[in-house]
């Protein structure tokens, strides 16, 4: 029986290893990344693009940690940073485009709470991606500031600052919306 050492491995073995490892990474973290991406982007297609781009970056580059917790943080960070890059490019395009229409809920909608919710999500769309990620992770996923800090690779102080600024922006959007209706 012949024993193959790492040094003797053929290229297709290495490819197979990479595929197995990447498959496991995908299986372990896809749901979590999709949930976050869907809440960071305006559509399902955008969310799927973002998730795929994140995994492709993992596929292309070295540096994904081996242990699950650090791998998750690495992927979340890449996902949020990818979204930030997209957001900046879109912001540049918006700068040279006519002012966008403010999307308001249909006047026939009878539920004030539904209107407020629509307004909040509309305002969330305007937040910078990292701030939006902090709000989503804290308010919707119930993550603590320390957990978010680990996931995003920033300090807890910065997390709390983003939380405060984000909440203030959302509250302001809500107040403006109520003012408009009067």
């Amino acid at each position: 029986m012949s024993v193959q050492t790492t040094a003797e491995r053929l290229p297709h073995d290495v490819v197979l290893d990479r595929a197995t490892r990447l498959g496991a990474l995908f299986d372990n973290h896809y749901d979590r990344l999709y949930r976050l991406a869907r809440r960071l982007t305006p559509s399902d297609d955008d969310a799927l693009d973002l998730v795929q781009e994140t995994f492709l970056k993992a596929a292309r580059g070295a540096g994904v940690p081996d242990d699950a917790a650090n791998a998750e943080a690495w992927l979340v960070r890449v996902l949020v940073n990818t979204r930030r890059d997209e957001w900046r490019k879109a912001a540049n395009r918006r700068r040279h485009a006519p002012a966008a229409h403010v999307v308001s809920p249909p006047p026939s909608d009878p539920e004030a709470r539904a209107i407020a919710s629509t307004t909040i999500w509309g305002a969330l769309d305007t937040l910078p991606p990292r701030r939006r990620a902090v709000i989503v992770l804290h308010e919707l996923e119930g993550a603590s500031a320390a957990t978010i800090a680990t996931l995003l690779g920033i300090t807890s102080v910065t997390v709390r600052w983003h939380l405060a600024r984000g909440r203030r922006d959302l509250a302001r959007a809500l107040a403006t919306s109520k003012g408009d209706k009067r």
Partner: protein
Amino acid sequence: MTSIRELLADGDPLRDTPGAGAAVREAMRRRVIAAAAADHTRGRRAPSRRAFLLASGVAAVIAGAATVPVWWPDGGTVHAAVPFEVRVAEPGPRPGLLALQGAAAGTVYAEPRVVVGNGDIVRTRVLPVGSGFGLEIVFTDHGAAKMRAATAGNVGRLLAVVVDSRVLASPRITSPIDGVGILGGTYTREEAHRIAAGLVPSRP
């Protein structure tokens, strides 16, 4: 008083759409792994997720379609209920190109050479796409290689997707396309199932 957290939870997009379908997930998994292998061996750029999401304006009526022979790369003959082929195409006429009619897709002018046909399909699956149903089409390794080669060399041109002798969609090629395609989004569930069953050839 409703809190911001409650308002966010009310409008959470995951409330109504808890996640992308298993087929979409599996297709993405394959693309990512294929990209990793391709990057390692050839430095090839990964295919775009949307590159082969073919928005179709036409729901092909194929109920009761007769079984017809179609081309098979090994030189033999296979039979499939719904003829399927993909060709590289142009929006305008040119010598040597064939005019292919489509309803919503309009007329496109396709190369005589078929890139992939029924014989290159290994399996199909119905999945929800947008407000309707579409088909995930998985090509054989040989078919995927042909798609990759044809699309890599024709970025910027059109891809005519012909189902049941009609151009169902003619998306522009934006990047190399690999082994999985998703068709449609305008089918009812029943239509999608009929097409899915009809596309896969029965070998003699």
